């Protein structure tokens, strides 16, 4: 089993490297120079150069041989004005002082709006997003499984057909429409929840309620459909027929036998959904004015905030790779037959 895990980990390295390359190529090679965008249309080359320096973009793209020269000026302290020689280690490090390796080190250009490091902003806003997404995910997972098990055990009945139709219908309507409709219905018309806003601390619950409800309802469609298929495959297995013949009650059959064997795709889905919990709620955070990471991303797109968009894309992709690796490992733990292949 450990050989399998090691193999999967080694196979993940080219993918992460590919993600690094892709992000770098998109944001540093294809994209218009962010300094030009910030400096404006009629900026002179000097102004553009100054903006680049301010944003920390005046490093070379891949390698920095010019920085490996030995003498470096001392700018402060008693020896100011003289030079000292860099150590070999410093020179090797300086060779890799480029935008590519900055990206690899998770060092992004500062946000344009607030001139703060992107990682700091993300660390601040992440708890807000998670406070909504984690409860929503847990509740929706429970609801999806419960409904899927209930519907699968009554296959072909009126309830099954109508639930399936509802799921298909909810997938046909764009999610933005559903969010707006829920916000209007539950917030403005029935006045059950505040329409938008956020407060820190315990008071956040009232503002988090509506986004959580919306997220749960929206995820039901795809989730119930998927888990229903998975459960139906399990239910047609021989051992379920045996259990029923033995006299095990319907509830017990479903919960004890089917659920345990259905756990494998559930775990895979859960682990791969984890990275999206942070950045995924883009629509709802913008509609409900929640100061989380989804809202950060939308604002960054509107403000042409290069560093933030690059950071969000890269971090989520790396997390997603790691999550895939983790789900592979969990798969091995759950089903020992897998690692023997």
């Amino acid at each position, binding site marked *: 089993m450990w050989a399998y895990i090691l193999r999967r980990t080694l196979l993940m390295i080219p993918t992460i490297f590919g993600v690094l390359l892709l992000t770098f190529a998109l944001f540093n090679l294809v994209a218009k120079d962010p300094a030009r965008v910030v400096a404006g249309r009629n900026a002179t080359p000097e102004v553009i150069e100054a903006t680049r320096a301010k944003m920390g973009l005046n490093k070379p793209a891949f390698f920095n041989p010019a920085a490996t020269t030995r003498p470096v000026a001392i700018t402060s302290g008693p020896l100011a004005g003289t030079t000292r020689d860099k150590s070999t280690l410093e020179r090797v490090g300086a060779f890799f002082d480029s935008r590519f390796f900055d990206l690899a080190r998770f060092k992004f250009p500062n946000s344009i709006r607030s001139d703060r490091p992107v990682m700091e902003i993300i660390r601040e806003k992440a708890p807000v997003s998670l406070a909504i997404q984690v409860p929503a995910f847990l509740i929706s997972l429970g609801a999806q499984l419960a409904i899927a098990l209930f519907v699968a055990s009554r296959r072909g009945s009126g309830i099954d057909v109508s639930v399936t139709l509802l799921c298909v219908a909810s997938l046909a309507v764009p999610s933005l429409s559903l969010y*707006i409709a829920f916000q209007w219905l539950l917030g403005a018309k029935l006045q059950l929840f505040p329409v938008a806003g956020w407060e820190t601390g315990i008071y956040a619950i009232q503002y988090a309620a509506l986004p959580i409800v919306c997220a749960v309802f929206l995820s039901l469609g795809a989730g119930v459909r998927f888990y229903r298929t998975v459960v139906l495959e399990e239910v047609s297995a021989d051992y379920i027929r045996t259990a029923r013949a033995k006299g095990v009650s319907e509830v017990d059959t479903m919960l004890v036998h089917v659920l345990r064997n259905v756990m494998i795709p559930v775990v895979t889905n859960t682990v791969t959904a984890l990275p999206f919990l942070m950045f995924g709620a883009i629509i709802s955070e913008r509609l409900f004015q929640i100061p989380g990471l989804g809202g950060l991303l939308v604002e960054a797109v509107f403000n042409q905030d290069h560093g933030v968009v690059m950071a969000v894309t890269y971090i989520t992709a790396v997390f997603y790779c790691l999550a895939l690796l983790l789900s592979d490992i969990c798969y091995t733990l759950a089903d020992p037959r897998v690692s023997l292949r």
Partner: protein
Amino acid sequence: MTTISYPDTPAAESNPGAFRLLLSRPLPAISFFLVCGYVLLALLTLIPAFTRAATDPLLQLDLPDGTSITEYAPPSLRNFPSRLLGTDIQNRSVFYRTLYGTRTALTITLFASALSLGIGVVLGVSAGYFGGWLDEFVTWLVATFSAVPDVLLLISLGFILKPIDLGFLGWRDADGSGMPIPELAVIIFALGLTGWVGICRLIRGEVLKLRSFDYVSAAKALGLSEARILFRHVLPNTLHLVIITFTLGAIGYVQAEVFLTFLGLGVSDAPSWGRMIDDAKLELLRGVWWQFASATVAIGVLSLALSLLGDALRDVLDPKTRSRR
């Protein structure tokens, strides 16, 4: 010249009955005609006479005290058909906006599908058929692109492509500034470069399977050129995947347009359903429901029809399910 039928020939190479089989059941048939209806409506908007009708000034609605108001007019049967679904804040007919939105949505779908299917098929076939380092490279590329979440890749591409100006190609405005990429092109590129991954995987799997079939080895033994084998034998047998992916992918493209417009990366000069739903955010609170409802219903019906059609096509065209019948 007599035609030899090889024992392992997948029947997809000639399948005249598939279309009739598709239309034989009520639900797929209705879906098919609905989708055709949408396409016809989109084509209708290209006719000059129709375009003229849509831009005629709407007649003013007169209130008892002599003032007239036309913004946010609710649906009514006056001035058919322009007032059928009401007007929005700029006195534009919601009916005509929905109709022209069809054109935007289907244009985006068509070109984005063409781009993504083009890239996906080319890469998938080369990887599956030629194998070796090409296969390794394409597999790595697919893994990389699928590691970045679709939504984020879409946003990133839209974000990057929007400010680029094509001045370096020599196209400049009168004042010397470069020409930005048209918004429609940005959306199409972003969607196309995001969507090729799925079809590439599918086609590569299918070609790997086809490569082992007897008729391909027979063709090679006969000395047919690689190109001929690819275009006459391998490629036609992957077409069923292309058709199914096109149909089901169209749903994603239509809904992605809504999402991109919400983020400010959509089309701003042409009517689009995404723009209508985006405007509806503020309108609903004032009790104006008609723009939101017509755009949502238009998208919902199209997505439903495409979804049912795609499922039915999968039943009809997939050789696995066909051989069982």
